[in-house]
């Protein structure tokens, strides 16, 4: 956020759970960071002192607990860095840089929001849902995954959402259709003030179509490879959409995002 100084701190791990194979929730104690954090923002994390891996890794806030001075990240083990992270236990130390990027902001007088995501793309959504609840905003959730086990934090979302729609590619839970078809059904008789989605190409494309049809306010939360996370390296560029006067323009996902109006960026 503008004006706020970057914070670099060592922080203690409170606990870590493997919720399903290769998917972890890591809870970290860092009052300095959580005090300033906004859903949609992220941290750069390092759990290694050696030079390999070298770079920090970016993770969004899955849940914020300002009263407890802690936060959670939800991550999938995919490579070198997340493998090392998967061994973290209570009391271990990690180095954090954050909170980074621009978080979400509900439009004025928001009454109802929708979250639409797939797989690990759900990572920033619980924090958004919590924030919405706090403000008395109704939540409509549309989540999809390859199979039912990969519908992460489904229980928590179900507790908090007014309605929850699910699709799975193998139809192990819900139908195997497009989750955005359910959103479209909702839109026919309900006014949704803001839609938040993850960087899945397919979801983004469908929501853009719905935006055209129903005049939605919609935001996408992007991921890009990052060396710094704070605007110094220019490595996290993403293409701005050609229309909107953005021809040939790039945004930095870390500094201009990671939350973008859906029709501003290409995925």
């Amino acid at each position, binding site marked *: 956020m*503008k*004006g*706020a*100084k*970057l*914070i*670099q701190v060592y922080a203690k791990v409170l606990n870590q759970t493997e919720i399903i194979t290769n998917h972890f929730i890591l809870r970290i104690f860092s009052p300095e960071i959580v005090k300033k954090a906004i859903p949609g923002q992220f941290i750069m994390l*390092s759990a290694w002192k050696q*030079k*390999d*891996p*070298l*770079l*920090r890794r970016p993770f969004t806030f899955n849940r914020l607990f300002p009263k407890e001075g802690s936060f959670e990240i939800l991550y999938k083990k995919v490579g070198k860095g997340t493998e090392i992270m998967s061994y973290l236990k209570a009391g271990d130390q990690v180095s954090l*840089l954050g909170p980074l990027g621009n978080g979400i902001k509900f439009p004025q007088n928001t009454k109802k929001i929708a979250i639409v995501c797939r797989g690990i793309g759900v990572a920033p959504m619980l924090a958004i849902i919590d924030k919405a609840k706090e403000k008395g905003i109704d939540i409509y959730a549309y989540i999809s995954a390859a199979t039912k086990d990969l519908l992460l934090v489904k229980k928590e979302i179900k507790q908090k959402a007014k309605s929850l729609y699910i699709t799975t590619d193998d139809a192990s839970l819900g139908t195997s259709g497009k989750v955005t078809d359910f959103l479209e059904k909702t839109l026919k008789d309900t006014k949704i003030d803001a839609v938040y989605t993850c960087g899945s190409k397919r979801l983004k494309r469908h929501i853009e179509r719905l935006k055209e049809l129903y005049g939605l306010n919609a935001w996408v939360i992007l991921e*890009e*490879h*990052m*060396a*710094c996370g*704070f*605007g*110094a*390296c*220019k*490595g*996290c*560029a*993403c*293409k701005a959409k050609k229309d909107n006067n953005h021809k*040939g323009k*790039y945004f930095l996902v870390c*500094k201009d995002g990671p939350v973008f109006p859906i029709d501003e960026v290409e995925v």
Partner: protein
Amino acid sequence: MKKVDMSINLGGLQLKNPVMPASGTFDLFEDNNLPYDTKVLGAVMTKSIFLKKRLGNPLPLICESTSGLINALGTPGEGVEYLIKNKLPIFRKANQTVIVSIGGDGVKEYKLLAERLDKVEGIAALELDLSCSNNVDNIIIARDEFLTEQTVAQVKEVSTKPIIAKLSANVTDITKIARAAQRGGVDILSLINTVSAMAIDIKTKKAVLGNKVGGLSGPAIKPIALKMVWDVAHTVDLPIIGIGGISNSEDAIEFLLAGASAVEVGTAALINPLVMLEIIQGIEKYLGQQGYSSLEEIIGLA
């Protein structure tokens, strides 16, 4: 412990201490939100600038490799007028010594940029990024003795500021290029820029970077850079700024002992924004503990 003199004069460029950012790895936005006071740095350095706006290379632009970072950004930027109007005031506020790095598509562009920037207040020196690939004939200036000499000479003709020539590691004999820059009249040498490199994804069986090839930086290149600084220091009598993989004060001190009078820090500051501050403090402490009263005393001792 008595106070150590950390200041250094590099061919007319006076620095209060020898530590500054490497071009392209440091930026300030309207809010300069770095977690320390940037005034403590020896200088601040802009990303290499061109006359016109440049978009850079196809995505992805960066990837990690063992103890290193490979980038193929293609030096995106808004162009020199934007820099003068929007960036310089912020850099000047951040530090009294501002070095502007300039790129160029051929000798002419360096000269035009130097000419333009000579009229601008508040620039302490220019660093010539001679490693940009030249779109016209695909020749990289820093790989050619004649072009290096010519570029420096043309820039010196129009500029009253101290000129730093930044050398490329991707050459057969860096001391020859260093000598060529000296013949052109350069005031200071900085080295090295990134080392040519690539990464291949064995799942997709394709190069990882959009540009396929890029430049390696970070700890992986430190011993290479150190040797090049040592070689050049033993060949050319010009002040040297050492660059390449410097991640802590021990690394920086190695470069000073090899013959560098100052250092630039790139990749390490992307990971730890406080690292330059730690390096300044670490050098000062080392000098004090070793009984030196000034930085100059250890330059080139190795």
